């Protein structure tokens, strides 16, 4: 640890980190565009300049804080007129060519350039030269659009590929004021991590095609959560509009799991979260709204207390029940399922689909079970979908519980199950299976709170980002209610 002085305060700093980190650690605000804590510093934008006192008798110098290592006894000031002036001049240069696009720019509201120009910039430009005219809508593959005019050539995007995914795809093309960002040979970007570019670009030059113009960022309410697309369980923030729709998922810094990044699979996994509700009064054709019970006309909407009574009677009169949960089950839900399994004298198991091909060296584990480790620790047995279907085919009755459990078992396989199987399912969506007798709705993982345990044993938190539909109760409470009912019903009757 090195001792330095920042704005008159003696502080300890890590000599391996650049000066800007020391400042930020102390809560001293130093702007930055090209520097990103996850990327190698290059010092190209010069907005981070601070004043450092010279040796005795020497004038002070202005240095780029992102490229300057801390050294013993450094005296740094960020708030002097000299530092401010330097940064303001630098800002004026950056804004020289940056279009006044904020009303249409998706970055507005979370744009570093906008924030800093607002705090420290001057109201008017002094240049009468026209701004650069470049391409405003250049597609860089399926995920990202580049607006060349807005780019301030900080090269964060270039370094993201060289430093993080270790496969260079972008470069700065041309010289001087003709420089633009481009891919090598105009090839579209590839890989599962392109979405991160939209996050790290300090301005609105790189934007996400999926999110483009969907919402203004200040209207989004952000909820801390965990990604469920693989067993890595990246920390994310779920951003929803008017408490109705998840508009965007972004990574959130977690040093031990995903740092600043996340894969595009997780980022774009909005479809399971934005499923429409089934039409009023119907069971199929969308998310389940209420409990459903098989009647003369197939599955019919039912009151959930009555359906629960029925389920308890049915399970009690068909002993030998299988209890299979979804790999999306949270620890809380899994514990409730464990109690249910005990009451039914069943072995708790969970569906464990085969690893997929998305596995890479960076984040994605290829395992689609976000809570595999947690379920294994609780004593659940992993069951491949094919084995599960085979077991179901001979079982007298079964409980399938958890978000997407039917989907993971495979609707085709489920449809072949014998009619005499008494099947109770807790899922977001029911399907028209001959063997499905009672279905209960459950919230999705952005509609409930709970915990998952990731592949490394790290706990990931789920929070309620959207209110679940009106009559949908938490799965753990529903399972507990069923368990209670079962203990009241005499077994084997």
């Amino acid at each position: 640890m090195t001792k330095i002085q920042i704005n008159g305060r003696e502080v300890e700093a890590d000599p391996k980190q650049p000066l800007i980190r020391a400042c930020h650690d102390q809560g001293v605000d130093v702007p930055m565009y090209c520097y990103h804590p996850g990327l190698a510093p290059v010092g190209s934008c010069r907005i981070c300049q601070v004043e450092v006192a010279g040796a005795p008798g020497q004038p002070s110098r202005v240095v780029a804080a992102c490229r300057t290592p801390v050294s013993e006894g450094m005296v740094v000031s960020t708030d002097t007129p000299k530092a401010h002036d330097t940064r303001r001049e630098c800002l004026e240069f950056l804004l020289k060519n940056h279009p006044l696009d904020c009303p249409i720019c998706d970055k507005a509201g979370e744009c570093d350039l906008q924030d800093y120009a607002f705090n420290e910039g001057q109201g008017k430009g002094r240049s009468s030269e026209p701004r650069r005219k470049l391409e405003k809508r250049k597609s860089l593959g399926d995920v990202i659009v580049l607006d060349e005019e807005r780019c301030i050539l900080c090269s964060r995007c270039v370094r993201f590929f060289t430093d993080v995914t270790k496969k260079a795809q972008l470069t700065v093309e041309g010289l001087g004021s003709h420089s633009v960002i481009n891919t090598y040979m105009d090839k579209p970007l590839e890989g599962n991590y392109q979405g991160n570019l939209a996050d790290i670009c300090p301005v609105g030059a790189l934007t996400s095609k999926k999110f483009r113009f969907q919402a203004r960022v200040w209207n989004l309410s952000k909820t801390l959560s965990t990604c469920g697309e693989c067993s890595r369980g990246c920390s994310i923030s779920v951003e929803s509009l008017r408490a109705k729709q998840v508009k965007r998922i972004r990574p959130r810094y977690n040093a031990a799991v995903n740092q600043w990044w996340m894969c595009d699979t997780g980022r774009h996994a909005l479809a399971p979260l934005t499923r429409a509700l089934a039409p009023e009064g119907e069971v199929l054709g969308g998310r389940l709204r209420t409990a459903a019970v098989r009647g003369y006309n197939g599955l019919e909407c039912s009151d959930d207390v009555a359906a629960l009574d029925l389920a308890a009677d049915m399970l009690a009169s068909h002993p030998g029940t299988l209890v299979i949960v979804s790999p999306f089950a949270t620890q809380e839900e899994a514990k409730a399922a464990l109690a249910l399994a005990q009451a039914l004298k069943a072995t708790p198991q969970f569906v464990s689909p085969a690893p997929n091909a998305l596995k890479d060296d960076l984040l994605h584990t290829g395992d689609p079970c976000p809570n595999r480790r947690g379920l294994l620790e609780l004593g659940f047995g992993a069951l491949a979908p094919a084995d599960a279907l085979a077991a179901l085919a001979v079982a007298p009755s079964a409980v399938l519980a958890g978000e997407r459990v039917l989907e993971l078992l495979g609707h085709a396989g489920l449809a072949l199950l014998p009619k005499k199987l008494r099947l109770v399912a807790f899922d977001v969506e029911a399907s028209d299976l001959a063997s499905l007798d009672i279905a209960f709705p459950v919230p999705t993982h952005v509609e409930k709170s709970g915990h998952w345990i990731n592949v490394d044993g790290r706990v990931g938190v789920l929070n309620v980002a959207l209110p679940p539909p009106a009559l949908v109760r938490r799965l753990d409470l529903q399972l507990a209610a069923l368990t209670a009912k079962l203990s009241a019903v005499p077994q084997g009757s």
Partner: protein
Amino acid sequence: MVVVQRKELTLAERLYLPEVLRGLSLTFRKFFEKPITRQYPEQPLPTDEVTRGQPRLVVKDDGNIACVSCGMCEVACPAYAITIDGGETDRGIEREPKRFEIDMLRCILCGFCEEACPKDAIFMSNELELADFTRAGLVYDLEKLKRPKSALQERIDYVYRLNNRWRSKQ
């Protein structure tokens, strides 16, 4: 403390009848004065460039809406009357509103939206009348809000004049 001294009444005043007659003569004289009531539907309220009627969206001379759905009016609105969903367009401006609703029952005609708009896209028109049989009918959508620029020109000129005066003071 304020002590109000009661006025001593004269005999004539205490007799009351003369005062009654005085009052009657006053009302009788007023009887012949010209009514000042405005016969509303036949004589509409006067409007002027300063009239802050209901907000309306400008349709530019090329037929395109001037709004880029930046959401500035939405945040500026103190009554939460505005709801905007943006979307992409092929026009040079890239972005335009797909849904733009002003709940006229919530709107308090404050003009903040007009002030907030960076694109000269929303102005306070001189339309003041607001009636419908349902609440939903008073949530105005894009089609109900669009007005050709010419219809709002008077107000636009006024706003520009006002802003210039303010700017020259700086």
